[in-house]
């Protein structure tokens, strides 16, 4: 079911618009189902958005490798939620997907939280939320977590999980240390582009002059006005994005620029970051964001999340 996203992202990469109907067609083609809300959300995630140079930092590993000779579902398999520091046997209870028991399979000082099950789970709003809940519980209990993306099933059961932990020990350990004691927040900065354009047109002398010309002589002057206005807005958006990045950087051990999403309701997203924040500083984040608040900017903070954005 990451297939949806994969498909949508492929379309976007090819410069094509992605809409709800297309995703539905994709779902039907792949013999999958999903709830309505999920479709709308994925369409929003993968829909046409303005990209920035910063997007160049996005990892390429996010695209799942798909091979026809990929392992087939078997009965003896484990679904893996995350990796934690922990060597004792432990159960998080029946909170796994489908009510399965989520428990620790360990090798050395590392463990994976898994449930026993042979098939990759279907994605729905609910199953995504359940995956997240298990990762959240694991973070509470073990103090650090490397979340896996939804949908990883390992054939070969617990023995194979241990083999994998052993083989990846150093790499996983390093990732765990990087995020230990830290949590993630998402910060989205939006504005109303029409209101901003109106404000700039009334305030900036150069734009005012171009506007007067455009009124007298539409056509070419109108185009010049539009180009100048677009440029002013771009500069302003970049400035705000830099300011927020600086503020967030003061508190965070990591700030990652994220892809700008469609904001909906006539709003435009001008900055989007994931921040990795030491747990004890989390309370200060909202305050700092409030301090650099500006007229006409709407800031949305989501979290705290397990460090999904800082384990790639």
């Amino acid at each position: 079911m990451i297939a949806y996203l994969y498909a949508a992202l492929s379309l976007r990469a090819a410069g094509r618009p992605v809409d709800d109907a297309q995703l539905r067609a994709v779902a039907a083609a792949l013999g999958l189902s999903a709830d309505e809300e999920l479709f709308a959300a994925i369409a929003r995630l993968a829909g046409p958005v303005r990209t920035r140079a910063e997007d160049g930092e996005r990892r390429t590993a996010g695209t799942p490798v798909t091979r026809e000779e990929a392992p087939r579902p078997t009965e003896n398999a484990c679904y893996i939620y995350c990796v934690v520091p922990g060597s004792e046997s432990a159960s998080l209870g029946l909170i796994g997907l489908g009510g399965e028991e989520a428990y620790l399979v360990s090798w050395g000082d590392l463990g994976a939280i898994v449930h026993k099950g042979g098939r990759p789970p279907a994605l729905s709003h609910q199953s995504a939320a359940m995956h997240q809940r298990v990762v959240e519980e694991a973070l509470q209990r073990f103090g650090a977590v490397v979340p896996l993306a939804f949908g990883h099933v390992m054939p070969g059961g617990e023995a194979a999980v241990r083999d994998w932990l052993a083989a990846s020990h150093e790499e996983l350990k390093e990732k765990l240390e990087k995020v230990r004691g830290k949590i993630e927040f998402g910060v989205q900065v939006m504005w109303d582009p029409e209101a901003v354009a109106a404000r700039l047109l009334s305030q900036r002398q150069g734009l005012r002059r171009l506007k007067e010309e455009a009124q007298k002589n539409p056509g070419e002057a109108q185009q010049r006005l539009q180009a100048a206005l677009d440029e002013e807005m771009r500069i302003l958006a970049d400035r705000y994005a830099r300011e927020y990045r600086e503020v967030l950087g003061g508190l965070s051990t990591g700030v990652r620029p994220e892809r700008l999403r469609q904001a909906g309701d006539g709003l435009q997203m001008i900055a989007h970051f994931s921040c990795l924040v030491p747990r004890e500083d989390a309370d200060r984040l909202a305050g700092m964001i409030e301090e650099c608040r500006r007229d006409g900017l709407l800031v949305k903070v989501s979290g705290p999340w397990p460090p999904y954005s800082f384990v790639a």
Partner: protein
Amino acid sequence: MQGVHPSPLVDLLDRVLEKGLFLSADVFITLAGVPLLGIKLRALLAGVETMLRYGLIDPSDAGVKTEQ
């Protein structure tokens, strides 16, 4: 700070699907419906409209209208 149109589902999916650790499909069955993906996803790269045109998707199944 104003809570603007919170979309927790989008934030959730953004993380749970697009982020987190991705591991090699050599070791993991990473995707639901894996056996289907090889062929059909490749076809997707050619575009959904093309698939519809060549009947890779049955439009009535998909519940979408096409200009055929």
